[in-house]
């Protein structure tokens, strides 16, 4: 990739304009695409996702570790060796002890609310409650300053991906209790925090103790970063289009659909960057409730939905593609198929009616669809409403407040007949975190449930275990693609869209490779650091 | 002497007044202080005194619009304070009030008919002969055009409006009419008419009046007996001629002395001239 040709040069201040503040500066707490990208600037782990401009940007590569981990024969013990010359921003060395301490923070019941993968894979007693309450982590060994050994609950061939999670980072032993890392951080990456005004401004400056020689991925061209927070989406677009002054050095998230028409202007068009979707927007159908307990009905839904209209309602062809599979194309393991095809993706009501008739529902029925009180999702729901009206299916919308939405639909007792939501992989190097969590019957819980269909099919469950046990990750990915198709035959959900991104970096920004999952901020730089 | 129609004994009324300023404490203010008075049937008792002397408060106590702090009121031999329900309604029918400001005392949004029949409605009594006819009759009695019974108070002049107030009082055939400054707001000529009307009604129907006024000249024209109030107390009471002719209390004397008067010699001359003119006129005819 690469921006307009010019290469990035060291120096200058990079700006990021964004609407929402980062969830947490503390990586044990935060876990979402936006903040993960930010963590990459200030924290380092044993492994990490490859650079944004790498051949396979989804790949996992070593970071603090000399190399990827070596698993024992039984797959239960993973060993890593640290590089030399690693330091925190205060100059203290980073050793295996700091790594163990940092990782064990994930077990603290109040702090470790980020990625669950460490807890799900590393062996620990049931009552272990993090370093502040329970001391050393019993499942992690540090035989010497440079070696760290993890004992797993069960074999996990993708454990390198787990250690690339944002909460697997080192911290000085004893630090970070309570709210210590809420407004301040201890950095291990190329930048450290200068100022933080929650909700409006974050300033990063170089971490003088970060040694580029120990880091193969991060380029860290700019001298400083400024995150301007709390801006309205439209405002951001206006500023980027105008590109006045320091805004020429700015980047931001996806542009608004309304802005697209204005990006046709030649000078803007040449700055535009696009990125593929890493997430799938889908409608989950609750198979425990009639008539979605019938596979024909669920298939009929898949046929009837007008994905073309959904696409327009979500920002048009530049911002969304009709989805036919659960795994998006950009995630390793995607297989291209469409079990419920229709002309121009506009839906096939006849076929749907046929299917409904086969179970005696040709006169239609009505169901309740949970949606989030957020404009795009409302527009999508309204599109579904319109499309299903053609097959006499009446959709009632249950608009749920954004903050309580996932809580509500993740609680089977509160969930309605169907819900629209999105799903992204926890790491894109395989589809193992894409499809299984949505259909694994053994993961249905009273709260925080992801299997919205509540499908519990022995065949599916067995297939999941089988593929997960494969140590050849490439072969496993092929199987995930097959699995996707097998699941879609049962139609527990209707994939709706892959929401892509259109981005507009400032004129002076180079090597900007946006990504809808996590943009690699560490390789971006300014063409002319003296400008802006 | 027969028992009085109304007998008030030792009336006291205290108001709680809020103190002023931040630290002002609530104080008790005695507006009426040990007032005793009798009103006999067919008689007019005038209550005079300066502003704030407690005249209206006394009237409102007697009309049972406010409760006494202490003291008793007997009406036709019955303790007014003990009355409840039906008996109280009956008392309300026996005692009526005519107020000072004719406009303020008539509901501007009601027609004359509704105003004068209201007391009966409130007492849930039938209207004899129907509202229409009843109103016409009343209006005739107080000297108003019966055709105007559909009008609103604002469509009448002050004196006429005051007559409506009197008509309303008459509606329930009361025994006692309390007239609280009933003529004070009127121009002299109109005032004279209303005073004449009140006197005529008393002659014809035998009401008793408790006539409250600050204008001693008016009081003298209408009262049989007079009680003078000052600072919540009755300082002097007695027959009209006795109070006006031979006031005992210094306050009464001061009050009388302050009344502006037209020189008697001018009046005498005027009467002479008048008589002379009338003779001339008669002679010319």
């Amino acid at each position, binding site marked *: 990739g690469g921006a307009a040709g010019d290469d990035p040069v060291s120096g200058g201040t990079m700006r990021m304009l964004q609407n929402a503040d980062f969830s947490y500066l503390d990586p044990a707490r935060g876990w979402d695409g936006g903040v993960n990208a930010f963590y990459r600037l200030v924290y380092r782990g044993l492994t990490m996702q490859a650079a944004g401009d790498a051949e396979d940007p989804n790949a996992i590569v070593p970071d603090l570790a000399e190399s990827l981990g070596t698993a024992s024969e039984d797959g239960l013990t993973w060993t890593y060796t640290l590089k030399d010359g690693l330091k925190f921003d205060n100059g203290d060395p980073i050793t295996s002890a700091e790594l163990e301490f940092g990782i064990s923070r994930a077990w603290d019941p109040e702090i470790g609310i980020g990625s669950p993968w460490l807890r799900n894979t590393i062996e620990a007693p049931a009552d272990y409650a993090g370093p502040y309450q329970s001391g050393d982590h019993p499942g992690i060994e540090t035989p010497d300053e440079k070696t760290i050994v993890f004992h797993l609950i069960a074999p996990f061939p993708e454990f390198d991906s787990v250690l690339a999670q944002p909460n697997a980072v080192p911290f000085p032993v004893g630090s970070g209790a309570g*709210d210590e890392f809420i407004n301040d951080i201890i950095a291990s990456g190329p930048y450290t925090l200068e100022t933080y005004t929650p909700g409006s401004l974050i300033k990063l400056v170089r971490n003088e103790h970060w040694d580029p020689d120990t880091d193969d991925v991060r380029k860290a061209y700019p001298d400083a970063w400024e995150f301007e927070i709390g801006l309205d989406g439209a405002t951001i677009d206006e500023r980027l289009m105008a590109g006045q002054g320091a805004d020429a050095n700015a980047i931001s998230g996806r542009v608004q659909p309304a802005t697209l028409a204005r990006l046709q202007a030649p000078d803007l068009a040449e700055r535009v960057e696009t990125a593929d979707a890493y997430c799938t927007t889908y409608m989950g159908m609750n198979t425990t409730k009639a008539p979605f307990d019938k596979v024909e009905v669920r298939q009929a839904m898949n046929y009837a939905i007008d994905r073309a209209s959904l696409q327009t309602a979500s920002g048009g062809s530049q911002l969304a593609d009709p989805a036919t599979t659960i795994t998006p194309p950009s995630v390793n393991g995607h297989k291209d198929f469409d079990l419920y095809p229709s002309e121009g993706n506009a839906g096939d009501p006849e076929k749907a009616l046929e299917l409904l008739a086969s179970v005696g529902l040709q006169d239609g029925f009505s169901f309740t669809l949970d949606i989030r009180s957020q404009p795009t999702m409302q527009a999508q729901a309204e599109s579904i409403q319109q499309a299903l009206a053609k097959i006499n299916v009446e959709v009632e919308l249950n608009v749920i407040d954004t903050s309580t939405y996932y809580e509500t639909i993740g609680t089977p007792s509160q969930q309605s007949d169907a819900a629209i939501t999105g799903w992204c992989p926890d790491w894109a190097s395989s589809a193992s975190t894409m499809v299984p969590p949505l259909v694994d019957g053994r993961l249905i819980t009273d709260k925080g449930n992801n299997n919205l269909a509540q499908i519990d099919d022995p065949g599916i469950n067995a297939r999941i275990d089988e593929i997960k046990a494969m140590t050849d990750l490439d072969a496993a990915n092929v199987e995930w693609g097959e699995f996707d198709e097998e699941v879609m035959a049962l139609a527990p959900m209707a994939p709706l869209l892959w929401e892509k991104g259109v981005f507009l970096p400032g004129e002076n920004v180079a090597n900007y490779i946006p990504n809808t999952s996590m943009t690699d901020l560490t390789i971006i730089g300014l063409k002319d650091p003296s400008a802006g | 002497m027969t028992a009085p129609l109304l007998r008030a004994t030792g009336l006291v009324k205290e108001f709680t007044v809020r103190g002023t300023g931040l630290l002002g404490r609530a104080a008790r203010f005695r507006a009426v202080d040990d007032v005793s008075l009798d009103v006999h049937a067919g008689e007019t008792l005038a209550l005079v005194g300066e502003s704030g002397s407690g005249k209206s408060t006394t009237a409102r106590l007697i009309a049972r619009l406010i409760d006494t702090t202490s003291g008793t009121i007997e009406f036709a031999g019955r303790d007014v304070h003990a009355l409840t329900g039906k008996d109280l309604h009956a008392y309300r029918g026996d005692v009526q009030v005519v107020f000072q400001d004719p406009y303020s005392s008539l509901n501007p949004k009601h027609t004359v008919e509704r105003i004068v029949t209201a007391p009966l409605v409130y007492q849930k009594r039938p209207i004899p002969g129907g509202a229409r006819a009843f109103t016409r009759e009343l209006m005739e009695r107080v000297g108003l055009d019966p055709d105007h019974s559909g009008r609103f108070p604002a469509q009448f002049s002050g004196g006429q409006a005051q007559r409506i107030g009197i008509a309303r009082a008459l509606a329930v055939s009361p025994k006692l009419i309390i007239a609280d400054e009933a003529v004070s707001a009127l121009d002299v000529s109109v005032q004279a008419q209303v005073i004449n009307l009140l006197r005529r009604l008393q002659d014809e129907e035998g009401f008793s009046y408790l006539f409250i006024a600050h204008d001693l000249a008016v009081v003298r024209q209408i009262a049989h007996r007079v009680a003078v109030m000052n600072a919540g107390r009755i300082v002097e009471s007695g027959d009209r001629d006795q109070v006006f002719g031979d006031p005992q209390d210094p306050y009464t004397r001061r009050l009388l002395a302050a009344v502006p008067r037209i020189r008697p010699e001018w009046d005498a001359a005027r009467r002479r001239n008048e008589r002379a003119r009338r003779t001339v006129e008669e002679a010319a005819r």
Partner: protein
Amino acid sequence: MAVVLLLVCLFTYVIFFVLSPDPAVQICGKNCTPEAIDRIRANLGLDEPFRTQFWTFLTGLFAGRAYGTGANAIECAAPCLGYSFQTSQPVTDMILQRLPVSATVAVGAAVLWLLAGVAAGLLSAVKEGRFADRFIAGLTLTGMSVPNYVLALSLQFLLVVTLGWLPFPQAVPFAEDPGQWFLNFLMPWTVLSIGAAAVYTRLTRANVIETLQENYVRTARAKGLSPGLVWRRHALRPALTPIVTIFGMDFAGLLGGALITETVFGLNGVGKLAADSITKNDQPVIMGVTLLAAFLVVVGNMVVDLLYTAIDPRVRVGSAT
């Protein structure tokens, strides 16, 4: 006053206590177990009866409090309006950070509407019944009727997008670039002040006209004072006194956040904080802003009462008669 504030506290607390999603669930995050929730609840005292919790909240207002216990305890210094578990910030800090922006917005708008309103009102009163008066009357009716977000959007469309007279709003501190700062706040000030200016115009006009009919104005003229003196001393002061009352309260209300205007213009003030917190269902923050706003109104009321005492001798000195 204190009663009203306590009522506000209680009412807000009850409502949010009833409506609020469990903060424990929010703290617990995405992958949560019922046991973890219970532990957090116990830690935060959420399992206590309502009365105890409300009491803790009240004492927190005056003495501060701590959330949780032991190493992970989070201190919330007095006046503790609560703790946002979504942003991991004490609500008081969040509000204090936003207050300067809201204050800037409020002060600017207040100055604008007071000047414009009183000036237009006076003009209208002087020219009563004439063209200027009727023209101003038309303007004020329009000003009162245009919903402020419609006005905000129209202005932005016209001045920024179409005509390009004003730059796109950008948060620039005053010290950095006063010119830009001024231009930046110009639209919010205008939008906020138009409705109020209309009301003040009408109030001023009505008060002045009424005062001019007062007997004491006639007395002043009968003394042979010049019209200027009559106006300045005898008409303006009584006519403008009631405006002070209303102004105090309006201003206090505005300090508590101009929700819509701040949202539309993307100003990071208290109002925007409230709006954002509502979208995120961050109840402690909503509650904090609500309390602050109510507090400001109540205090505004009190200040106005004091001012009134200072201005109006009838209130100041108890009747001596």
